[in-house]
Each structure stands twice: as C-alpha cells, then as structure tokens.
C-alpha cells in the first residue's frame, strides 16, 4: 500500500477487523517495522532511525488507543503530567501546560479524579490530553471511539477535529462507517493489508468546530446536548 498524508490533514483509516489498521498505526510509531517498504514521517524514513532516537520520534507523535491506557493509580492531572515528566519536562512546564490542556479537552473540573471515577468518554479525553500535551505535529488514534456510545463518540471526534484545526495532522483508525461517512474527510479503506480505496474528502469544506458538531449530530440523529468541550453550544 502506498499513501501520503499532507500536513494538517484529517484522515480516516477504515476496514474490517484484522485488515491492518492497528498494524499501520504501530508501524507509524515504529512499534513494528514493515517487512518491506518505507515509512516516511516529515520526509524521513523512521525505520532507518537509530534505536536511541525512537523515543524522540514518539515525542513528536501523539497516540490515542481504544483502551485509553491510563494509569489507574494516578489522578487525571498526574496522568497527563506523567507524559511530561518522563520526557524530561520541568515542574514549571508541567504546571503551565497540564491545566491548559485539560481545559482544552473539557475536564478542568475533574483534575483530581482517578480514571475509574470517570466515564469512558472522559477517560478518552484524558488520554487525548496526554497525547496532545506536547503539541505534537501528528496525532494517531486507534479506534478512539470503539468503547463509546454514539453521542460520546461525537464529542471525541469533535475534540480531534478541534485539535486538527490547530494545524495538527490527525489520522484515525476506526470501523465506525457511519461516523466516517458523516465527517466527510479523507478515507483510506484497507482490506487484508491492502489499500482498496482512497477517497479524498467528499464535500469537504472548512467549518468551525461547533458547526461541525451541529452538522454531525443532526446527520446522526442525536440531540445537541452533551459534551460541549467547554464551548457554548450553538
């Protein structure tokens, strides 16, 4: 398969279970190496990086997973701060960045809660906050809405879209065809490890985050109550 993502693009990878969506995501963070071919990020072949540089590559890529991968014995704040701590962030940096990112994902009121006190959608927001706290230029999400109900999923997608609008390239792997169809963004369809379809954003137009949310909600037939990401819903 061969495809290229442009800077600032929002794209989906779809396909049935086992078609290689997750493997593709893992290849992008060099968790697995492809047997053949190249993975270029910002023009560099990541499989030719020295092993000691791999952590630095991962700092420039945010990753979000279906099962959140939060640390259960740390608070929301500490979970996000952990990402900064382990990459050598100082105390001042942590104090400045963590509350800001938690406000962005709409969890400013739950800073001191533990993950098991949060709903699935809120946990996924923490995980997105952790992935995005360093403002990486590329955000990968592997089934970010796989465990969530449709309404919560829209909230998460809205959040990812908002992150995309700050200039971050976002690549989402999902099997939620409905959601993908309504998002009207570029879609890469995989089947058995091959790229079978690459649809450039049908009917794509630049819309604000709230316009986006309203449209998607309307198309999916759910009300506009629920998460607003701290923005007044219009």
């Amino acid at each position, binding site marked *: 398969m061969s495809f290229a993502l442009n800077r600032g693009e929002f794209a989906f990878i779809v396909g049935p279970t086992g078609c290689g969506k997750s493997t593709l995501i893992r290849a992008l*963070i060099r968790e697995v190496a492809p047997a053949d071919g190249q993975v270029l990020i910002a023009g560099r072949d990541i499989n030719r990086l020295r092993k*000691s540089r791999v*952590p*630095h*590559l*991962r*700092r*420039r890529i945010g*990753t979000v997973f279906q099962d959140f*991968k939060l*640390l*259960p014995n740390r608070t929301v704040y500490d979970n996000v701060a*952990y*990402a900064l*701590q*382990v*990459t*050598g962030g*100082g*105390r001042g940096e942590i104090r400045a960045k963590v509350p800001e990112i938690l406000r962005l994902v709409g969890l400013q009121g739950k800073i001191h809660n533990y993950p098991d006190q949060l709903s699935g959608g809120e946990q996924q927001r923490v995980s997105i906050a*952790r*992935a995005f706290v*360093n403002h990486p230029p590329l955000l990968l999400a592997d089934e970010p809405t796989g465990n969530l109900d449709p309404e919560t999923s829209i909230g998460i997608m809205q959040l990812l879209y908002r992150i995309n609008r700050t200039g971050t390239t976002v690549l989402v792997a999902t099997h939620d065809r409905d959601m993908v169809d309504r998002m009207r963004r570029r879609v890469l369809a995989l089947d058995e490890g091959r790229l079978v379809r690459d649809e450039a954003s049908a009917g794509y137009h630049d819309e604000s985050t709230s316009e986006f949310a309203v449209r998607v909600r309307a198309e999916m037939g759910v009300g506009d109550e629920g998460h607003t990401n701290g923005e007044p819903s219009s």
Partner: protein
Amino acid sequence: MTRVLFFIAEALRALRRSAAPSLAAIVTVVLTTLLLGVFVPVIKASSTANQNVRSQLALRVFLNADATKKQALAVQKRINKIPHVARTQYISRGQGLKTLRKEVGEGPLSRGLSQLNKNPLPPSISVYPDDPDNLNSIQARIVRPTANGKPKPISPAIDKVNSSQQVANKIRTVTNAVKIILSVIAVLLLVASLMLVANTIRLSVYARRREVEVMRLVGATNWFIRWPFVLEGLLVGLLGAGVAIGLLWLGKVTIIDPLAENFALIDNFSTIGFKQLVGLLLGSAVVVSALGSGVTLRRFLRV
C-alpha cells in the same frame, strides 16, 4: 535534579507496592552479607595461619651421634651449595639439649631430662629453603634415592633427614578444606540473593507494565524507563547490606573486641580490617543487586 527525584520516588513507590517480595530479597541480602562478613575474616585468618606454618618449614638433617664438629661443618658446607637452600644452621649436641629444655619448660618431662646422665641428642643441621615448595627437591639432593631402593646420603655422617612437610601438608589440607567449604557456601548465598533481587525486579516490571507501556508511548528514553528499576534493585541491596553491617559491627563491639583484649590469639591473627570489610561487603551487595536488576531488565523489559 527533578529527574533524580522522580526516579527515587518511582523506586520507593515500587518497593512499597511489592512489600513482600522486596522484604524477602532484603532479608536474603542481609543474611548473605552477614555470613560473608563472618566468612571473609575466617578465610583470611586461615590463609595467614597457613602461611605462618609454611614459613617455618625446614629440614632437620640429623648426623650420627659421634660425628665431630668438623664433619658437621663439612656437611653444612655441602648442603649450602644445593640450589634453593636459603640458609642453614648447625645445632650442636649441647645447643640441641638447651633448646629442648626450653621447649619442655618446667614439669615432669624436664625432671626426666635432668635425670639423664648423658646428652642423648645427635648434632643436627636445620636447612631453610627459599620457598617451602622446594623442600622435597632439597631433601632429594641431600639423600639421593638409589637404584636398589636404599637411599644414599651425600655424606656418611648423615644419619637421617626429617621434614616437617607432612605436618604442614595436613594443616594445609584442613585450611584448604575450610576455605573451599566457606567459599562454596558464600557463592551459593550470593547466587540466591542475586536471584531473589532479580525476582523482585521482575515482579516490579510486571506490576508496572502499564507504566512502561505509557512511558514508551509518550517517548521516554530507554534509560529513563530502566533507571527506577535499577534503583529499586540497588535500594534492596544497600538496605540489606546496611542492616547486615550494623549487625556485624554490633557483634564486633560486643563479642570480638572484649575477647581480643583477653586473648592475644584473636588479636594476633592478621585478618581484614573492619573498614575494608565494610567496603567489600557494600561493594558486593551493590554488584549483586545491580546484576540482579540488570539480568531481569535484559530479559523482561524489552524497550
């Protein structure tokens, strides 16, 4: 600095969370260090004892009782020419008796000696080798074994040659056995503590696989991930060694020191100094625990 604090906090957090295996590892390290602290001085003392005995080894060449001083000196001269002979000493009949009297001291034996109306001792020559290992070759040069089996001494005045080698060999066998047994026990204990430290770290890695996964995801460097585990192992080692050294010091102050004042024997053994011993024990505890963590991290923490 924040990093170091982070590592230490993580290591302590891990130790607290897996208290039981950590405690088992610490106790094993305490026992190992304690026994090592006893064995090392004992091994050291037994080898010095062995060396003392070996340095006193000599050949006694007994001459015929009626050998004249002139003959004796001629024999001494010939022995002096044998290679590896460091020095020789002629002991006349009178001198021999005097030494015997001194060695026997007062008692029934000395009364028995004074009842003798004639000196029963033959004149002799003590032969000191440059190295105890050469005793046999020197003896062979003084009394040449011949084809018909009857040994032939280099001078007809020589009656027989006694060697203290047999005694020395016995002492050496005993001290060597003690050394080998103690060393084997020490090595087994070291292996046991190494494995227990390794096991503690393994449980810790297992308990924290989510943390490790997250650290890798957000791009922590490999050594950043490893350090808390290495520190945890080192803490186990240092805690164990610290307790053991405390106990050893207590034992030294309450048992060995008062004994050493009363018995010149203990004081006389040239053994290892306490400071050196502490250094050695701390060093081995650190090496063992670092190895234990290292082995585990190589096997179970693929980063």
